[in-house]
């Protein structure tokens, strides 16, 4: 029997509230138990976690793995390796591949590719509409059967409110959450960065915060009408956070995620015309950053998700307005969360673990994100004080479009366990 004993770490499990120095025993890919004096017959592998935190495996509910179709930017395999190096044991790739993941065949392809080549769990997210074109609904039920855990037209939001309403109704039949990249494409058209003093100064066209807010407002109203489970992707603006809090107070099944970069950076942090700071939603004002941070503190925001968006260097090495949107983020997420949330005392460490585990786990209902006995043995082992410097040229992702190159962090992933196997160790 294959066993792994993780010894003497600070075991933190938000699902049970456990926070103590203990051992975690894994047998045959399942958590056998955690405690101080576990009855261990024969240990095939031992990991000394003294001084480290032992948490349920982190879940990133928003990544782009670019496969099929854009394998020059990332593959399921390379993306999964970057995920493991970031402490993530489960990742959810968005459907904007080529072809779009809008039917069970593509979903199955991703699931099968992941089974063979990925070193972490991959739970695909299916499209809301065919080709993410915003018209006809995708084959939501069959994608669910093939393994999709949610639906989203990420990056190409459904502009037609009636279509969105039907999608929410239909998804509810299968208990699937509807994830929306909230952006009114008419209001944001042509924009390259957050509309504000910086965009005016740099002469770049703006993406106003209201382009996000009007869609969050619309979707919350539709979620109430339909009773759907609705999730706001990469929330970035003050008013959107306020509206999600309002929806929750009304008892709606509404949730939200925030990205590490929207917690870490504002539009003023961008070196002039540096496309490694270009993404959607854009880095917003410091007031918005503060509001997103407060949303994490208050509980309006349920999860941290990276929106890991690899692009090859050649595409990012252009005039700013011609560069694609998106940055990679799997390997730096934990470091940023510690720096921006835990070290300054904004949230407790347990709450941060929750944002990476039970938070997204609950939204997706994938039965992960806990160290309860019998649960799949996905474990993230990390340090809260070990200093390290991110070198994007050594990234396990195929791409290197990160604004955090050369940044020094205090605390980060040390080892990642998926299904009882140590799939990554800090070199």
């Amino acid at each position, binding site marked *: 029997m294959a066993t792994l004993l993780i010894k003497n770490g600070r075991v933190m499990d938000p699902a049970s509230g456990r926070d103590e120095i203990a051992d975690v025993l894994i047998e045959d890919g399942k958590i056998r138990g955690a405690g101080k004096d576990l009855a261990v017959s024969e240990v095939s592998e031992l990991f000394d976690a003294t001084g480290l935190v032992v948490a349920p495996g982190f879940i990133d509910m928003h990544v782009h793995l670019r496969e099929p179709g854009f394998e020059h930017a990332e593959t399921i395999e390379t993306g999964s390796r970057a995920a493991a190096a970031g402490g993530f044991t489960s990742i959810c790739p968005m459907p904007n591949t080529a072809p779009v993941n809008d039917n069970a065949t593509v979903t199955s392809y991703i699931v099968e590719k992941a089974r063979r080549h990925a070193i972490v769990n991959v739970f695909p997210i299916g499209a809301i509409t065919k080709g993410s074109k915003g018209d006809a609904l995708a084959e939501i039920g069959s994608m669910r059967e093939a393994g999709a855990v949610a639906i989203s037209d990420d990056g190409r939001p459904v502009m037609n409110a009636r279509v969105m309403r039907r999608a929410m109704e239909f998804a509810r039949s299968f208990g699937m959450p509807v994830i929306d990249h909230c952006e009114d494409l008419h209001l944001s058209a042509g924009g390259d960065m957050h509309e504000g*003093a910086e965009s005016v100064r*740099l*002469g*770049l066209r703006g993406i106003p915060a209201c382009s996000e807010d009007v869609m969050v407002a619309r979707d919350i109203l539709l979620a109430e009408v339909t009773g759907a489970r609705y999730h706001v992707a990469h929330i970035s603006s003050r008013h959107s956070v306020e509206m999600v809090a309002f929806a929750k107070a009304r008892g709606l099944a509404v949730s939200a995620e925030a990205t590490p970069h929207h917690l870490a950076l504002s539009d003023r942090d961008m070196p002039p*015309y540096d496309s490694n700071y270009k993404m959607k939603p854009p880095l917003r004002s410091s007031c918005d950053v503060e509001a997103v941070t407060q949303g994490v503190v208050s509980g309006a925001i349920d999860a941290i998700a990276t929106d890991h968006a690899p692009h090859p260097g*050649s595409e990012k*090495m252009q*005039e700013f307005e011609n560069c694609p949107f998106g940055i990679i983020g799997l390997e730096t997420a934990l470091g940023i969360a510690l720096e921006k949330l835990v070290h300054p005392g904004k949230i407790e460490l347990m709450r941060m673990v929750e944002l990476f585990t039970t938070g997204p786990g609950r939204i997706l209902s994938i039965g992960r994100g806990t160290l309860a006995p019998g649960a799949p043995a996905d474990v993230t082992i990390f340090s809260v004080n070990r200093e390290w410097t991110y070198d994007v040229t050594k990234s396990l992702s195929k791409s290197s479009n990160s604004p955090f190159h050369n940044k020094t962090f205090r605390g980060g992933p040390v080892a990642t366990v998926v299904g009882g196997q140590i799939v990554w160790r800090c070199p």
Partner: protein
Amino acid sequence: MPQGLLGIEGLSRPEIQAILDRSRDFQPRGDQRFRKLDLLRGRMVVNLFFEASTRTRTSFEIAARRLGADAVSITAQASSVSKGESLVDTLNTLAAMHPDAIIMRHAASGAPHFLQRYLETPIINAGDGTHEHPTQALLDARTILDRGQTLEGLRVAIIGDIAHSRVARSNVHLLSKFGAHIVLCGPASLLPRELENIASGVTLTTDMNEAICGADVIMMLRVQLERQHEAAFPANEYFQFYGLRLEHLQLAKPEVIVMHPGPINRGREISSEVADSQRSVILNQVENGIAVRMAVLESVLGAKKNGNAAH
């Protein structure tokens, strides 16, 4: 780090003053024909224009030649696919021919800033998208100073499509550094509120009469239909509310001067009567463009010469 000229915003007041002072030496005296100088003999500049321009390109060419430098002009068509890669490649190819400076105009804001990160050759920005047009602001300042002693305390009204104007941005930065009062005026859809904080001494108004009231200088901007991605105002209402006509000048100071970066659209942002009036200094601006660009070229290329001498 190559010392080109990417924008006014990053320059200090003494740096700007030095260029303005030096440009006086290059202004023609009376009817005298300009004698060619040999200050930059043996030096070469490349004019690389990704956007159509007659006057700025010609002005830079003449400036270079009057200083004895060689000037090569290239009008490049930005390709539609993978522009940036070819942009970097184009610039690297040019740089390999060892020009002393590259004078560049590009439709994308920040294009020269992006390129300067990869290039040893100094870049002089001849206009980047809707961001900056530094030599235009310098020649405008030279033109204002030709009529007065100082920029300090002057009331300068800049009127038109402020949102899309690189001329406005560079002028705002320059005038602000010298303590002028700048009134930006246009329809609200072309006048982002954030402009108020772009520099000190800036106020905004959508009322043209208010902008002109007591003005020492009126700068009209070209209505740049090619930079608008939508109709931000009804085109046939523009002249009625934001076009400069003779009667407006009564509101300004008696010695007010009217400026325009050109090319002018008669009857769209400025009436023919104003453009051809005694108050108009539009042609002086063109003339000063050469003198100011000579001072800029001398400063950029001269700096490099000193650097080489140390080797």
